[in-house]
């Protein structure tokens, strides 16, 4: 009886050993493992040979398993093989190697358009959109409603000149191309006057981006005056320094942060009433942009809105994934999982369409820019022949 009892225990242990083998993939690795792997681990020959002689799988010594390796076996099952995880390099030298630096824009985007890869936002929306605000419990109506005359009088909201956006754009063009403007007339002296702007406008080789910024400042004396005194140095001397440009940009951005575009009125409120997005309306209303610049700006706006939508979809996908991962095992959980899988499929389809739309917008912008350059060259050549 004792022998039968021990025999049953032995069978049980053997089954455990077989199970432990299967943990690594159900194959006989014992002898091959012992020869080469043991050498790598510095296991001595006598021990190695003993291991080989023992009938079976010394790697999974049943006694070892019965005495505690079984716990390791269970832990192994909790750490599955080939789990997909992303771990950037640990060393500072190799971290970021091959990736663009933060803030670096795409080399392929025509200058002046300021297009960047969509940045995928973390789920902490911070009230950046009505949808995000409603997710946090805020009333989206409060965020999207425009300011009317009664709000203006009470001081609760303040309308911002729609031309402020064009002003900011012109300032950024000025800052990015400061040397070009500076040297448009005379020597490089770090100063800019209306003469420099006129010289850029009159230069047939200058790009429409530079010309558009120059025209805006020439056509809007109120903004030129604002710029020339932005740094607070000197009075209205008609001279603009690089410090004025930096100060003006900071000031304009601060105003736009404090008074979001939705709080503007006048043409914007008319735009909302007519169903035309505010940004597009301000572009169309702008008197400082040429037709080509307006078309490019509208396309860029559409591309940026597409980027925002792409970011939102990816955030939603991340949320669905997280909820899916937290589901249990019951029948209800399986139903929820199936529903979430369908949601994920719909989100992926939407993401594909948005990415395709973005690609088409970008191709359109590139084609437009290319055609514009060709037309300009042809015009110049024709003038030469004439």
């Amino acid at each position, binding site marked *: 009886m004792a022998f039968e009892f021990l025999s049953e225990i032995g069978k049980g242990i053997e089954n455990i050993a077989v199970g432990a083998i299967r943990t690594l993939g159900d194959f006989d690795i014992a002898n091959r493992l012992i020869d080469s792997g043991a050498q*790598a681990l510095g296991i001595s020959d006598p021990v190695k040979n*003993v291991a080989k002689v023992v009938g079976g799988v010394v790697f999974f010594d049943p006694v070892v398993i019965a005495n505690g390796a079984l716990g390791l076996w269970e832990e192994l099952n909790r750490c599955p093989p080939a789990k997909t*995880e992303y771990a950037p390099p640990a060393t500072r030298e190799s971290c970021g190697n*091959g*990736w*663009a630096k933060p803030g670096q*824009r795409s080399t*392929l985007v025509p*200058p002046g358009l300021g297009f960047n890869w969509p940045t995928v936002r973390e789920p902490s929306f911070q009230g950046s959109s009505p949808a995000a605000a409603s997710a946090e419990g805020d009333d989206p109506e409060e965020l999207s409603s425009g300011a009317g005359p009664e709000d203006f009088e009470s001081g609760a909201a303040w309308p911002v000149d729609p031309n402020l956006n064009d002003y900011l754009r012109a300032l950024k063009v000025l800052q990015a191309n400061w040397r070009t403007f500076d040297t448009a007339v005379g020597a490089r002296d770090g100063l800019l006057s209306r003469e420099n702007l006129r010289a850029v406008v009159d230069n047939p080789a200058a790009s429409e981006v530079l010309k558009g910024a120059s025209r805006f400042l020439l056509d809007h004396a109120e903004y030129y005056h604002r710029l020339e005194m932005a740094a607070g140095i000197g009075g209205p001397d008609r001279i603009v320094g690089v410090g004025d440009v930096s100060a003006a940009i900071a000031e304009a951005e601060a105003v736009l942060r404090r008074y979001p575009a939705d709080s503007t009125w006048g043409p914007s409120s008319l735009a909302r009433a007519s169903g035309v997005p505010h940004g597009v309306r301000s572009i169309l209303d702008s008197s400082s942009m040429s037709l080509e610049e307006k078309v490019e700006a509208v396309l860029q706006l559409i591309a940026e809105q597409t980027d925002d939508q792409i970011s939102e979809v990816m955030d939603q996908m991340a949320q669905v994934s997280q909820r899916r991962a937290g589901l249990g095992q019951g029948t209800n959980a399986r139903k929820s999982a199936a529903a979430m899988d369908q949601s994920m499929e719909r989100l992926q389809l939407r993401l594909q369409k948005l990415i395709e739309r973005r690609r088409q917008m970008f191709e359109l912008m590139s084609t437009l820019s290319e055609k514009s350059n060709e037309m300009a060259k042809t015009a110049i050549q024709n003038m030469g022949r004439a």
Partner: protein
Amino acid sequence: MEMNREEAETLRGFARGEKTWAEVEGFTQEDARKVAEVGCDLAELGRLDEARVLFEGLVELNPKDSGARSALGTVYQKLNWVDEALAAYSAALESDEQNPIALSNRGELRLRAGDGEGLVDLKKACEADPEGRTTAGQRAALLLKVVDQAVARQAVNGEPGKG
């Protein structure tokens, strides 16, 4: 199309093989991490083909990123594309020889093929990830513990029949 000197140099660098497409497109490590998170989630859900596409895209954008290559290797491994998985892990280790995910999974695949060098990979994986921050690092440590315990047991028991 107008382009400043730095941008032109970036494109030339790409043509010479010195710059990656990620640097041309302005795709940052943070962008890559976000895409990789989605890829990991897709793999977890069993959507291996979609995960493969994402990670293959990341590898195309920046072939130097060992994290993307090793993640791609795990997807190949789950698809039972063993040769591709091994190649991906080896390529990952060329960029970062201390990548615990590549080391651990390559080690295990090598052991399955009867190559004892797999134990060396497992050992290196443990050294690269001593705190077990990755699942692969934890698995490598556990596998080596099983080996250690078995060998230690045999050393105690000595010759068969004398234990």
